[in-house]
């Protein structure tokens, strides 16, 4: 398959920061990713949607090697993703990930959660790490929770801490795996607000989400996946107004019913 459509940026075409070429993955006999080709440019925001079981989470988890692909090439920030540990570690330093279940470390305070990786991976002195941490806590609007434990925070606060934790590593790319799916409705907005701000500052983002309102606001490109393959990709205005595939249309009709 030839390269898919690139994003339509305002400035000159940005160099690609993620490239997936003919990527296949099997779980045993089950073919979970079929011939995935994806190019994400620097500063581009990609929203991946699709029915459950379509492989969208698996695809983005392949990007930071939380899942292993069997065929094809993945190149992140110029580094090829192979079984070479050095490459994997280098890539993971530049890619931040926010999980559906937050996955904050419950035995550490919020501040310790944020400073853990900068201290141990980027080898920052403690003071600098804490300064960065407090800065990002401010950015996600919960600076006063620094010395609390995750168990004492609400879901929305925990997810914002999770976002801040990834940001403290100053990654080039942020991956979001259904970040608001586990939240009560009244807390979804506070998390989406943070994500919108992040997008507006130019962060490269790949989001798996069902929040179509957010997608319309932020996305440069919508990607629809179904049964392990990319069915359609288009800028949001085309995607929502004029879906080309019947499967896309079916999915949109289900998800935009209200």
């Amino acid at each position, binding site marked *: 398959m030839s390269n898919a459509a690139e994003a339509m940026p305002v400035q000159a075409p940005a160099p690609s920061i993620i490239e997936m070429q003919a990527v296949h993955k099997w779980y045993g006999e089950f073919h979970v990713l079929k011939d995935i080709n994806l190019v994400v440019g620097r500063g581009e925001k990609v929203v991946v949607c699709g029915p459950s079981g379509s492989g969208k989470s698996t695809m983005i988890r392949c990007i930071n090697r939380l899942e292993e692909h069997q065929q094809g090439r993945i190149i992140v920030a110029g580094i090829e993703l192979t079984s070479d540990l050095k490459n994997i570690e280098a890539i993971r330093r530049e890619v931040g*990930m926010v999980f559906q279940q937050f*996955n904050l*470390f419950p*035995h550490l305070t919020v501040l310790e959660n944020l400073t853990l*990786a900068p*201290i141990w991976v980027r080898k920052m*002195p403690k003071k600098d790490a804490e300064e960065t941490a407090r800065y990002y806590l401010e950015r996600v609007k919960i600076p006063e929770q620094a010395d609390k434990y995750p168990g004492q925070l609400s879901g929305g606060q925990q997810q914002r801490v999770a976002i801040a934790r*990834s940001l403290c*590593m100053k990654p080039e790319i942020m991956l979001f795996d259904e970040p608001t799916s586990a939240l009560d409705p009244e807390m979804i907005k506070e998390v989406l607000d943070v994500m919108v701000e992040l997008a507006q500052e130019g962060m490269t983002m790949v989001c798996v989400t069902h929040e179509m309102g957010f997608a319309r606001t932020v996305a440069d490109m919508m990607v629809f996946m179904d049964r392990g393959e990319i069915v359609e990709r288009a800028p949001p205005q085309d995607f929502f107004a004029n879906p080309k595939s019947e499967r896309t249309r079916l999915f949109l009709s289900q998800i935009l019913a209200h």
Partner: protein
Amino acid sequence: MAVQTVATPSRPAPWRDPKIRAIAVQVVFVAVLAAFVAFLVHNTIVNLRRQNIATGFGFLDREAAFGIGESLIPYSPADTYARAFLVGLVNTLYVSALGIVLATLLGTVMGLARLSSNWLVAKLAAIYVETFRNIPLALQLLFWWALLRGSAPPPREAWELLPGVFISNRGITFPVPFAETAYFWMAIAFAAGLVITFAVRRWAKRRQERTGQQFPTGWAGLGLALGLPAIVFLGYGLPLRLDVPALRGFNFAGGTAMSPEFGALLIGLVVYTGTFIAEIVRAGILAVSWGQSEAAMALGLRPGQRMRLVVLPQALRVIIPPMTSEYLSLTKNSSLAVIIGYPDLVSIANTTLNQTGQAVEGIAMIMAVYLAISLLISLFMNLYNRAVALVER
């Protein structure tokens, strides 16, 4: 608006008042219990008097007049019953302490093995756990004892497992080094190594906080703890004279022997308790959700760092309480030594009981000792739990 006076609720009749009822019930309960206990005590006293059995702990000062197979502290039949009890207590504590250390090692290895991605290793560990967990400990002890004692040949035909290590029906005889001054200084060097390691750790931590640079404290500590004694050893010119057991007459002389009773008890306890510890370790590690490891991976932490900083602290919280319970269980199970004739506390108390007829005092003493150990372990566990409890809403 009329001012309404709220009538104070009238006191209910005494037999309906919950407070009075509560007190009445408790009084009756305690009274019945006390009466029952008094009845038992009365019967006991009458029966003891009838059988001419003495009461009180005076017997402890009498001569024991029985020998004890093995003991860590010097003892002869001319010593008092009190000393005999002490021997039993020391034996129990010794085999329990050794058992706890070895069972923890075996159990941890087996628990991790069950979680291994290597199918063969995981299955073998599972077979170990299922087999030895479902067979009574008493049976296992008898089996090891028969193996070490019955199946082994007499000293003249003993198996030489390794040069100098003999297995016979007198136990496992192996060489021990003769005491040297060097060993004393090596022990000092080891202690010094530990102290220095602590100091290095503090220095390394401070340096990391200041500059972010990391220092391999673990390896450094290992090097110090092993290296310093090694240097002393070299300095003294590698002094190592082994007292090798040699057959003299019908038995071995020299070296030291581990009796079949002790061996069987130790092996049985370690193998049996190891299965429970393996399950505890496995459950503890599984209790830490996979998402924690994934988040740590996504942040770029290496496997060693992931284990140390994220998984282990959480796993230990789940592992340590049941683990201390198993330690207590092992200590209590060491009382099965009486089945195979190892002179532990219960075994010696039993002999004393039979000789003096003072069953009540003997049993009371055993129970007091085990209760004390129990309470100590419970106390430690409660303190630990409070210290590491995860803070929640």
